[in-house]
Every structure is written in C-alpha cells, then in structure tokens.
C-alpha cells in the first residue's frame, strides 16, 4: 500500500543556477587575485576569512549530519541529504588553503625570526607554532573530514540504491565516534588559523566559540537551500511547515548558545582585566568599537527577537531572510575576529572594507552553489533509502 505512494520524485536541478554560482565564484576569485597585487597582506587575511567561513559551513554541515544520527532525530531526515551535499564544501578547502600554506611566514608573526628572538612568550610556543607541525595539523583535519565524509555521507548516498536499513546502525556508531573527533578538528582549525594570529593571546573557549558560529553558518545555509528547493518543488510535497519550524527553532537555540559563549569569553576577560588577555578585545575597541557592538545586535539581538516568535519560525519567507542574515552575521563575526590583526600590523587599526573584502562572500557563496550543484547532480535530494524517511515526513509538531 505504501509503495504506491510516491514520497519523493527526483527532478533535475536547473543548470543556470550552476552558471550563476560559477559567475559569482569567478568574480570573487578575480577580485581576490587582483587584491593580491594591490595589498598582499590584506589579501591573505581575506583569504583566511574565506577559508574559515568554508570550514564553518562544510565541517559544520558534517557535524549536523552526525548530530542527526546520534540523536536518532526523525524530523531532520528529509533534510539530511541537503546537509550532506552542503558538507561537500570540505573538498575545496584544501584548494583554498594552498596559497595560505605556502606563505605562512608572511601571515603569521610566530614565524617572524626577529620576534622569535626578542619575545620569549612567542618563542616558547614554537614547538606547536611552526610550519611543519602547522601543515601536519592541517592535513590531519583534511584527512578526518574526508574520511568521515566518506563513511557518513557516502554510506547515505549508497543507501539510496540498496535501501538497506541495516546501514544506519554502523553510521550511527561512526557518528557518535565522529563527534569528539570533530570537536578536536574544529578546535584546531579555530586555534591555528584565527587564534594564532595574535600568538600571545589565548582563550580556552575559542574552539567552542568558533563551533557555535559554524553550526549557525551551516544550519542557515541548509535552511535557506531547503526552503528554496521546497518552494520550487524539488523536495517531497509531504514536507510541512512543522519541519521548517524545527529548523528555525534549532537556529534560535544556536543563536542563544553563540551569544552565551561570546558573552562568557568577553565577560571573564573583562572582569579579570589581565592586560595579556584584554589585549585582544582592546584591539577590537577604539575605531573598531562600533563594529564590535554591532556584532551583538547583528548576531544575537535581532535574530533572537525575530526567531523567538512563533510567526517567524512558521513563515518560509521570514525564515529565508533570517537564514541569509545569520549566514552574513557569521561572516561578520569572522571578519571581526580576523581583520583587526591586519589593521594592527599596518598600524592604522581602523576597519577596512572595500572591494578587497567582497571577494570573500562572492567566493564562499559561489563555492556553496557550485559545489552543491555538482554533487547534487544525479543524486536524490532526499535520503529515500533511509528507513526513517517516511516517519520523518510524517513528523508533526
């Protein structure tokens, strides 16, 4: 009886979307290349923002996949394939890392021989902060990402054809195993690429802070793409408002979680007032002050007040707008974390934003679209082989 009901019908995605994504990507790359010619250091910093944004969305999406398996959630099963495809962003991360890995000494002060000579604190970190170990750690994270993508997403892709329900058991175990490994990976990414820009500063919660933002970035991407696909008939007609409500509720929860982590980090450093630690925040005061205050509103107050209402979470247009907003808010966050170090190096310490910086959103959005379209080609946009697929569609509040 149930086999007569068609839960999902595959429609092929329009190629013009790929073209649009490609144009954005090319434009972004062109801007980036031109910026290297104009101001080398600034271009590298923007490339770091790009890289960390890609890590956020890609690795964050892989985490969301694992999270679903670990919690045995039903409602998110219809969206899992989209999340898996978005996680495919991890494959272009090595590409983006290459220009950075070849020029670590231009970017990072802990490779500056004069500083290593005079500053004993920085020199003391050399066993960890040196080119070789840095590259090894980067490669390790690549290996982890690719390996777990293969087992988590790969098994799900295969399951579409075999429709073998026993696949879930091992995937769930591997997901549980992935969670702590993911924690370490994302901590390494945040500490190596962002925290070490100011090597004398440190914060034990930094990995968690970056994690919170990453989940938001990934979740908002998945939400936006899911709504767009649904509204254009690419997903099952059995998906309801209730499913998107849950995505909105999850975004809300992580907005609050991010704010909690951000506030904890700030308040503890402000309270103890130790110059070693406050330095990082002081660099984001002065002419960066309004941007810092703006972050609170952009990434917390406004999404909070919107998503707390039932209306926002049930209205697809509002959810789309909020998803885009949160995605850009994470970009804002990364920009705020990374660029002040550049402006200090150039002794201006005032925020800069011009065509240089535009390369980042163009490249990231371009890659999201292009990678999605390429991976989604010839694949189902929903995990039809998953035994919980039907139950997931039946979910209601």
């Amino acid at each position, binding site marked *: 009886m149930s086999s007569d009901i068609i839960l999902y019908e595959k429609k092929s995605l329009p190629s013009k979307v790929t073209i649009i994504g490609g144009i954005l990507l090319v434009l972004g790359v062109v801007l980036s290349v031109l910026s290297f010619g104009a101001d080398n250091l600034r271009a590298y910093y923007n490339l770091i923002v790009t890289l960390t944004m890609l890590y956020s969305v890609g690795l964050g999406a892989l985490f969301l996949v694992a999270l679903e398996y670990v919690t045995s959630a039903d409602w998110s099963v219809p969206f899992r394939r989209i999340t898996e495809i978005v996680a495919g962003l991890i494959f272009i991360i090595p590409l983006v890392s290459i220009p950075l890995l070849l020029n670590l000494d231009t970017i990072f002060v802990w490779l500056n021989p004069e500083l290593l000579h005079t500053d004993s604190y920085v020199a003391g970190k050399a066993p960890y902060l040196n080119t070789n170990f840095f590259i090894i750690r980067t490669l390790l994270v690549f290996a982890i990402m690719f390996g777990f993508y293969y087992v988590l997403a790969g098994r799900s892709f295969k399951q579409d054809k075999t429709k073998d329900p026993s696949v879930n058991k091992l995937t769930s175990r591997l997901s549980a195993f992935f969670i702590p490994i993911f924690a370490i990976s994302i901590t390494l990414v945040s500490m190596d690429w962002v925290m070490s820009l100011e090597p004398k500063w440190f914060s034990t919660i930094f990995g968690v802070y970056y994690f919170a933002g990453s989940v938001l970035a990934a979740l908002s991407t998945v939400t936006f793409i899911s709504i767009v696909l649904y509204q254009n008939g690419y997903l099952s007609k059995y998906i309801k408002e209730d499913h998107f409500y849950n995505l909105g509720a999850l975004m809300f929860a992580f907005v609050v979680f991010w704010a909690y982590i951000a*506030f904890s980090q*700030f*308040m503890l450093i*402000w*309270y103890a*007032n130790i110059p070693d630690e406050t330095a990082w925040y002081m660099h984001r005061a002065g002419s960066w002050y309004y941007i810092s205050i703006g972050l609170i509103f952009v990434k917390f107050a406004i999404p909070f007040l919107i998503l*707390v209402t*039932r209306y926002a979470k049930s209205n697809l247009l509002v959810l789309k707008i909020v998803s885009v907003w949160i995605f850009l808010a994470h970009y804002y966050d990364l920009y705020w974390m990374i660029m002040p170090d550049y402006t200090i190096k150039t002794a201006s310490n005032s925020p800069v934003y011009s065509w240089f910086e535009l390369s980042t959103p163009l490249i990231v959005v371009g890659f999201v679209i292009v990678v999605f379209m390429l991976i989604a080609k010839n694949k189902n946009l929903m995990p039809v082989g998953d035994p919980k697929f039907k139950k997931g569609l039946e979910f209601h509040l």
Partner: protein
Amino acid sequence: MENRILHSVTGLFHSADEITQAAKEVNKAGYKKFDIHTPYPVHGLEKAMKLKRSTLGYIAFILSAIGAISAILLMWWTMSVSYPLNISGKPFFSLPAFVPIMFELAVLTASVVGVVLMLTIFFRFPNHSHPLHDTEYMKAVSSDKYGMVIESDDPQFDIDKAKSFLSSIGATDIGEVYWDNNELTAKKTIFDKKFIFGLVGLAIIVSGGTYWLLNKAMFKEPFNWMMYQQKLSAQSPTTFFKDGFSMREPVEGTVARGYMPYPYPADSAVLAEKYLVNPLEPTVANLNAGKAKFNTFCSPCHDYHGTGQSRLNGQFPNPPSLQSDRVRNWKDGHIFHIITMGQNTMPSYAKTVNETERWQIVLYVRALERAMNAKLEDLK
C-alpha cells in the same frame, strides 16, 4: 423536592478519538457553554473545541522584559547613584557584570508571575466549590474517562435535548450535576473576610517577627558576640595595659621613615662647615623655594631681609643680623648647621624644613646678603 439549580448535563467517552470527534460535534450543534474534561491533555482537542491560542506566551515575554528592566534599574540605582563604590576599578555602571542578574530576574519574573497569573486570573484558582467536584463524573475523568459537560446557562440549553444530543454522539453515563445551595450563595471575592484577616495577620506576624529578629534577637547572646570584641580601639581605655591606655608609644629607638642621623653635634659648626657643601645650584626655582620657606619660617625673627629687626619688635630677643660680615664669611655648611641644630634661643628647624629646603634657604640667605651689599659690578 429540593429546589436545586442545575449546573450542567454530563456524559462520558472512552477514547481520545471519541472525545475529539465529540468536540467537533458539539461545536457543530451550536453549543457555546460546554467543556471537556480529560485526565491528561489530548492533542488536537483545542482545535476541535475551537479554542483561541493561549495568550500566556505573550504575557510571559512581556513579564521577562519587565523583569530584565527592573533588574537593570535596581542595579543602576544602587551601584551608580545611591552608593557608588570603587570595586577593583570597575565602572559604577558595569553592564557586563549586570547581565547575569538581569537574566535571572527576567526568568524569575516571567515564571513566577506567569504561573500566579495563570492560576489566579485564568483559572480562578483556588476553587474548591465548583459543582463538578466530588461527583462520579469527576472521579471518572480524573482517572481514565473523557467527559463532556454542557452547562445550563448555554443559550440553547434544554435538559432533555442536551441529554439526547449527548447520547447521539456516543456518550455513556449521562448524568446531571447540581449546584450545592450553600456554595452557590457563597460569593468568593477578594474582599473575603477570612482572606483579609489572614493577610493582616500574616503582615503582623512577618513585620513583628522581622522587627524582633533584627532589633532584639541580634543583640542577644550569642549573636552579639561580635559587637563586644577584645581588640583595642583607638583612643579608648583598656584594662589590658597597666597604664589603661590603648594607644602605645613607639618602642625606644624608633625612627621616622627617611630618617638620616645628623652627624655633627650642636656645638661643632666648624666640622659642619668643613664637610657640608651646598649641593644645590642657585637657580630661579631653588631661590624661589628658599624665599618661600625663609619668609614662612625665618622671617618672624630674622625679618624679610635678614636684618634681625623683625615684626616681633623685641618681644622675643632679636637675633643678630644675617647681613653682618661675620655671617657673610660663614660657609654654607655653617648656616645649614645652625638651621638644623639651632643656636642659643633659636630652636632646631630640622623637623620643619627638610634638607633640600634648608639648602634652598641657605641659597636665599646668600642672595639676601649679596642684595644688601650690592656692588656696581653686580648690575652688569
């Protein structure tokens, strides 16, 4: 026949599906004053009963905002206006430090006031005299049956029609519920005598208890132990020392900070002359400083020009003039020595002016002497 007033007609159902269907039917039939009782909340029943969405969500949100604002006002007033204290250099209005309490009070207000509002205003609880209490109907619906009541004050209520309607939609155990006459006449308003007396009594007990606790009990043993301590307070008598003083003198040989012993005895100005040299240059600053000190401390006896004809007018023996040749021929160290140790009637000024100031005075005295004995070459 007792003159009892009918409250409602009741019927029981036996499954969640049945009661949901029944809710839809009773709405279709046009009844407005009906109610449904279930031992646990049945999903979808609000929709079937066409109930409006509860406003408690908005109320809770507003209450939380009120809580947060009250908290920030409290903290602003106490920490920044009423009694600001410098606590490890934190600003008087330190928002990061105020956030935790803002959050806590927001949650507290929303939860407690929200629940109290729900119970007292929405439900009008406590209400132990509702006609449905202690009926077989209530015993059934509080355990395992689902019930519906159609109240007698519904506009289209007719007891037989209501009963037949209930059985038509599948209800069993159709019954009637009556008001208890004494409960009907008992009007429970907020100005209930018992309640008011209770409140007043509570107020008296609480305030009296607090007063006794804070103003009387805290002064009894053992709570008052810390008020009477054996430590010695400044300027108070004590039995601890034989002389009855709390204040003690410094131990013999105690010196003040920065104290340097002056090695030349009072009568050996010669030695002082030989070894003491003025370390200061006669700069404008030094001379001005010396002038200030001289005018303050030395001029009462020596006069502003050092002549000895001071404004004391001989009430105190006039000192010999500083303009004399004898003094002019003294070295700086001699003058310094006299200021330090005193001479004849002049006391020691060592405690009044410190060493630097003494040398500055010396410089000034020299300037005075030169001024009184000016030669034509000095003008060039």
